[in-house]
C-alpha cells in the first residue's frame, strides 16, 4: 500500500491534502458573533440636526449587556457638497474612550444613511456612554446632519459582541449556502485527487503488463 501511494502524482496528493486542510481550518478558525440592540434616542419629533462648524451634537447610549463594541448613528444629507468630515467621540465620565473621523464625500446625497461608527474594538461593560458629534470643517453649503432632537439626543444603536464559534458551525448556522459550497469543494478536491491517483496507478499497471 505504501509503495502504491508513493507513486501517486503531486496533483493527487495536492487534491487530497487541500481537502483535509480546508476541513481543519473550517473547524479551527473562530468567527465572532455580534448582535445589534434596539435603536435608542428621542422617540418623537426626530429631525436632521445639521453639523455646522460651531455645532456639537451629543447623544447618550445605554449598554444593557456586556460587550458593547460598535455604535451606529443615523445620518442624513440634504443637497450640500458633503466634502466635510464627520467626527465622533465616545466618552464615559468625561473621559474620551475612542474617536473616529469619517469623510462625508461617501455619503449618498439627499438620503438617510445608518453609519456604523467602529468607535472601539474592545468590549465595554454595561453602562451609559456619551457620543459627541462635530464637523469642524463644514460650512452652510457643505454639511451633513445626524438624526435627533435638539437638546434631547441622537438616534443611536448599540452593537454587542456575544462570543465566537468555529467557522464550520457559523456557516451551517448563518450561511447554509456557503456551508454547502465548502462541503462541495472538499468533496471535489478529495474525489479529483483520488481519481488522479488511481488513474496514474492504473496506467502504471497497464505499462508494466505491456512491457512483460
Amino acid at each position, binding site marked *: 500500500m505504501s509503495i502504491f501511494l508513493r507513486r501517486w502524482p503531486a*496533483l493527487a496528493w495536492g487534491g487530497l491534502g487541500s481537502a483535509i486542510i480546508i476541513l481543519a481550518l473550517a473547524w479551527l478558525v473562530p468567527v465572532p458573533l*455580534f448582535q445589534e440592540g434596539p435603536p435608542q434616542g428621542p422617540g418623537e419629533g426626530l429631525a436632521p440636526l445639521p453639523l455646522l462648524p460651531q455645532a456639537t451634537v451629543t447623544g447618550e447610549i445605554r449598554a444593557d449587556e456586556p460587550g458593547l463594541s460598535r455604535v451606529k448613528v443615523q445620518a442624513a444629507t440634504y443637497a450640500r457638497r458633503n466634502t466635510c468630515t464627520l467626527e465622533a467621540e465616545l466618552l464615559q465620565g468625561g473621559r474620551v474612550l475612542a474617536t473616529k473621523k469619517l469623510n462625508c464625500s461617501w455619503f449618498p446625497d*439627499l438620503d438617510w444613511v445608518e453609519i456604523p461608527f467602529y468607535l472601539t474594538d474592545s468590549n465595554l461593560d454595561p453602562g451609559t456612554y456619551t457620543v459627541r458629534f462635530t464637523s469642524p470643517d463644514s460650512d452652510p*453649503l457643505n454639511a451633513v446632519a445626524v438624526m435627533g432632537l435638539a437638546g434631547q439626543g441622537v438616534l443611536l444603536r448599540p452593537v454587542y459582541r456575544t462570543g465566537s464559534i468555529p467557522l464550520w458551525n457559523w456557516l451551517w448556522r448563518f450561511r447554509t449556502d456557503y456551508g454547502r459550497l465548502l462541503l462541495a*469543494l472538499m468533496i471535489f478536491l478529495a474525489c*479529483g485527487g483520488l*481519481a488522479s491517483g488511481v488513474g496514474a496507478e492504473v*496506467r502504471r499497471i497497464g505499462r508494466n503488463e505491456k512491457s512483460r
Partner: protein
Amino acid sequence: MSRAALWPALALAVLLAGFVLLGGRIYADYGITFDEESHSDYGRQLADYFLSRGERTEASRNPYAKGDGGAATAAAFGPPFELPVELWAAGKKLTYQEHFLARHAYNLGWGAACLMAVAGLAWRLGTPWTAFFSVLLLILNPRFFGHCFNNIKDIPFAAGMALALWAALAAVDSLHKRGRFNWVVLGLAFASAFLVRMTGLAAMALAAGGLGLIYAGHFLARPLGPPQVERAWERDLFRFGLALALVYALTLALWPFIQQHPLDFWPIMQKRTAEALAGHHAPPTLFWGAKSYPGRAHLLYLPSWFAVGQPPVFVAAALGGLVLVFSRWGGALKRWIQLYLNRGDRAKADRSRADKETALFARNSVILAWLVGLPLYLMATRFHFYDGIRHVLFIVVGQAVLGGLFLGWISARAGQWKTPAKALAGLVLVLALLEPAWTMVRLHPFQTSYFTPLAGGLKGAEAAGLEPDYWGSSTTAAARWLTGYTKDLKGPLLVKTSSPFSGTRLGLGPKLTPVLSGRAEDRQGDFYIGLRRWGMEALFPEAPVVHRVSRQGVVMAVVRQLRPIEGLPWPPRTEGVGP
C-alpha cells in the same frame, strides 16, 4: 529573444510606454459618465465591507448586489474589479473629486494591461510584428482609447477576455506539446474576465471547447499510431475543474454577496428573459434614427456598429486577418482529413503530424468561436447594446489581433517586393493610420464619440440618428468652462443641471453649487447645464446659451445663464438661444 524579435519588441515597448505617458498627461481631461457614480458607490461599499472585516454590509443592499428592480446589469457585473481603487481611495482619504480622477487613472492601468494581453496573444498567434501592429491598431481605435479613461468596466473586461483567451490558447498548445496545462494560470486568467462580467463565462466555454477538440482529434487519430504525448484525461479534467474552482473561490472571496453570485447565474438569466418577454427593457438607444430595445435590435445592428464606430483601417485590417484565420483553420482541417484518410498507408499516415494539425485546428477554432461565433450569436439573438460598441470591446480587442495578423502577414511578404511597391504600401498604411490619429486629436476628450469618416463622422452619425455623446461625459467639460467663466465672481452661485450630476459636480469650482434641476424647481438658479442627449438642453428655452460643448460641429451639452448676474454682461455675449 531572437535577433529578429528585437526590433519589433523594442517598437512595442516604445508604443506601450508612449500610451502610458500620454494617458498620464490627459486622463484628467475626461468627464464623468452616468453610471460611474453608482459603480463607485458599490465599489466603495465593497471596500467598506472588507475594511470593516465584514461588518458593514451596505453593499449587500446595493441595487447592483440585489440584482433586482431596474438593475438588469447587476446580473452581468462582478464589481470586485472596482475594489483595488476603492480600497486605495479609502486608504488615502481622497476627496470626491480626487476619487474620480483616481478611478480614471486606474482605468489607464487596465488599458495598458489590455494592450499587453493583446500583444501577448498576437505574439503567440503570429510574430513579434503581429503584436506590434495589433497594439498600434488598438491604440488608434478611438473607441478603445476613449474608454481607457471613462466608465471603468468595459476596458477591464476586454483586458480580462484577452488574458483569458491568451491563457486558453497557451493551454491548447501545452496540451499538444506536454500533455498537461497550467491550471493556476488558466484559472487566474478566467477570473480576470469573470470577475468583471458574467460574460467571462464565454472564455471558459471557449477554452473547454479548444481542449475538447484536442481530445476529440487525438481520439479519432488512434488508427494512425500511438500518441506522442500521454494524456491522462482524468488529471486534465481535474485540472480544468481546479481552474474553475480557483475562479469560484476568488469570486467568492472578492464578491461576498451571494445573491448576485455566479451560483445565481441561471435564475438571473431566467429573470432577464422573463423581463424581456414581459416588455421590461434596458434603456433604449438610438440606432439609425429609431429606438432600439433588447431582443428587437436589427439583425445587422452589431456589424453596423463595428463598421461605423471604428476607423476604416482597423475594420479593413481585421477583415483581412479574419480571412487569414479562416484559411489556416480550413487548411489544418483539410490536412488532418487527408492524413486520416491515409491511415491504411503506413508511409503516408503520420500520427505526430495529425496531432500538430489537431492543435492548429483547435487554436484557430477558439479564435473563430470568439470573434465570429460570439458576434453571430449576439446577432441571432438580436442582442441590444446601448451606447454602441462599448459592451463588445472584448470582441474589438480580438479584431485588433486579427488586424495585426493581417498587417504582419503583409509586412512579411513586403520583404520580397520591389522598392516602389514597398514605399507605396508603406505610404498607404501611414495615411490610413493618420486618419484615426488626427480625428482622435480633434475629438479629444470625446474619442468615444468617434464615427468613421465614410459615414460622415459625428455630423453624419447625428443626422442618421446615432447618439453623438457618450454617457453624458460632456457635462464635465461644460462645468469646467463655467468655472473659468465665473472665476472673478463672488459665490455662491447655483447651477441647475441635468444628469449626470457627478459629472457636473466634479467640474464645478468651489463657488458653484450644483443642484439637479428636478429637485430645485423652487430655487432660483444662476446657470443651467444641459445635455443634448434626450433633449435635456431644451429646458429653460428662454434663457440664452452662453456656451456649447461641441465636436465636429455637433453640440453635446449647453450652458445657459438663467438670470442677470453682477459682474457678467446681461444680456450675455450670447451664443444664441437655441442649442
